[in-house]
């Protein structure tokens, strides 16, 4: 039985639909990330689970009980807010103990649990300070500690790392993951950072315009994107999406015309069932190799911009029909601006999307 379950949940603000028929279930111990660009409805979805927003349609179930009309107080959920939402007039220690008041815990027990959670998150030395007097990373830890001091049904995190600097973000990411593993509760994390989503989640739901475009394990959404949006959203540098015309497909190979040049690409067998017509070809920048000569498997592009990234080099090139293509090559392989490149997509790493942007895959 899943702890959190959304059934066809829709949320409208006036004429604007923020969330459309979202289905989502989170099992006990599972961490699900809602990932998407700003305004995609991920935070609204989280607030609907928390009870801070009312769903316009659909059902919200938590721990098996229908919660649509229940207040946040009645849902027994712990949430970490984007801006931490620490209680400004209370000390760190009082902040941590605050959720226990509602549970009627004795003051001795409360003190014990505050100490325990402060130990876990290294907050013991700042228990007497006010939230205004502590550092950003400490605020983040206080917010998490305040959430985990109780034993709620589930945890919600709204952009938990967005306010931290890069270095702190990496440390905290590991720390949050560790804490969550120890708790084994259903958890929903909202983020716009794919790295956060992929590293912390068991499953990631990619949202756009209020819709869940795909939900799957980090591996699935990366390796088998359901459509062109997910394909371009997940992975850095972005996947190359190049327009072409499917001429013929058979077995694992498709002949695709790209502005005059006919290229033979290794593709998914399901493409064989497609009628000839416009398609979009997706290739990850790291799944494109360089050939020394033009061949039937290669297409040509002109190197335009070269960005060394340390171990690898990112090359921006332009194909004959004017599409941008990004290729990541090992550092040792030197390319100069203006050079003609013969690009060969890696076998089994080419994605074909039909005219509607849906992935064609068996």
């Amino acid at each position, binding site marked *: 039985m899943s702890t959190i379950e959304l059934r066809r949940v829709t949320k409208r603000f006036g004429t604007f639909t923020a969330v459309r028929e979202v289905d989502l279930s989170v099992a006990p111990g599972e961490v699900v990330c809602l990932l998407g660009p700003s305004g995609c409805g991920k935070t609204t979805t989280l607030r609907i689970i*928390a*009870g*801070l927003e009312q769903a316009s349609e659909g059902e919200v179930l938590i721990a098996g009980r229908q919660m649509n009309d229940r*207040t*946040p*107080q009645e*849902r*027994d*959920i*712990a*949430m970490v*807010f*984007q*801006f931490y*939402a*620490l*209680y*400004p*007039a*209370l000390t760190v220690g009082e902040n941590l103990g*605050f*959720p226990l*008041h*509602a*549970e009627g815990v004795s003051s001795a027990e409360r003190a014990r649990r505050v100490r325990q959670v402060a130990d876990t998150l290294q907050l013991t030395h700042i228990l007497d300070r006010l939230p205004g007097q502590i550092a950003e990373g400490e605020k983040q830890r206080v917010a998490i500690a*305040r959430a985990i001091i*109780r034993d709620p049904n589930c945890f919600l995190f709204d952009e938990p790392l967005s306010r931290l600097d890069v270095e702190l973000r990496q440390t905290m990411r590991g720390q949050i993951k560790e804490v969550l593993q120890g708790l084994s509760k259903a958890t929903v994390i909202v983020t716009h950072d794919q790295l956060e989503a992929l590293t912390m989640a068991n499953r990631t739901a990619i949202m756009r315009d209020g819709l869940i475009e795909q939900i799957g394990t980090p591996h699935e959404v990366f390796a088998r994107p359901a459509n062109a949006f997910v394909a371009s959203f997940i992975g850095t540098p972005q996947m190359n999406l190049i327009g072409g015309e499917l001429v013929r497909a058979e077995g694992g190979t498709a002949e695709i015309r790209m502005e005059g040049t006919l290229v033979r690409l290794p593709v998914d067998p399901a493409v064989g069932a497609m009628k000839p017509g416009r398609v979009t070809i997706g290739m990850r920048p790291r799944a494109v190799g360089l050939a020394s000569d033009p061949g039937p498997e290669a297409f040509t592009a002109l190197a335009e911009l070269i960005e060394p990234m340390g171990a690898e080099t990112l090359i921006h090139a332009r194909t004959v029909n004017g599409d941008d293509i990004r290729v990541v090559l090992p550092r040792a392989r030197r390319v100069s601006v203006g050079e003609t490149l013969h690009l060969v997509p890696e076998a089994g790493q080419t994605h074909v999307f039909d005219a509607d942007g849906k992935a064609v895959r068996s």
Partner: protein
Amino acid sequence: MAVFASRGRAVDQAGWGRTAFAAAVSLVYFFPVLVIIITAFKVHADALAVPAKLFPWDLFGLIPQRFTFDPTLQNFVNVFSRSFSAGAQAQSTGFGLYFFNSVFIAGAAVALALVIGTLAAFGFSRYPLKGNDTYLFIILTTRMLPAIVVIIPVMLLFRVTGLAGTYTGIILLYTAFNLPFTIWMMKSFFDELSPDVEDAARLDGSTDRRVFFKICLPQVVAGLAATAVFGLILTWNEFLFALLLTGIETRTVPVAMSQTIGGDIGVRWGLLAAIETLFLIPVILVTFFLQNHLLRGVTFGTVKR
């Protein structure tokens, strides 16, 4: 680097020229109050002397004799002595009662307005009604007329209800006076608070009452202080309604003060100045102790956090 350092110091230390200028301007503002305080220590003849005797000491002979006076505390004693001999007739002062009245009436009215106004402001801010802005506007309209316009109906009302001359009457009136300002001030403070913090408290299981008292109220202490001080000054100095609606026993200091003027020997400036000096003390004390909150209160929300 050196350039920035010297600039920083220039801002920290305005320099003697500017400091002296600021002090001079402050003195100009403070001068009337200073004259009142000095007059409070003068005997009647010194208070009337022309040119004015401004110095209680001759500063080692630096100040000519005709500008100095001998300070006396007699005026302050007279303020509280039940009667004192002024010329041929005994006059009753009894300011102890009037000071109590002023403190009690202003304190009660401001406290009452603060309680009602803060709750109302929280309601307007967090649970907006249909036409919320209209209600807020209507509340403010009561302050759009000069007080004297409504004095006749208010007097009739007080006469009929038997509130005239009672503490309850004047306290209720001042509370009503302070409410619009209190509601508007406090609403703006509540509007500034982060809604996330309250959402967090609700998720942590707090009732709405607990959210208000434990989370919201402590965040607007600065606002409460600023509102209280403004309300207190307004009420403390109010004269017109106090004159017409308080009785002999509930008279406030401004009214009582006005009634010491006159009599057969003219205005007793020394006595009047002593009353005024004492009258200043509570307001100065309150403002002084709340000034940190006050500064934060009146500049609240002007800088993005």
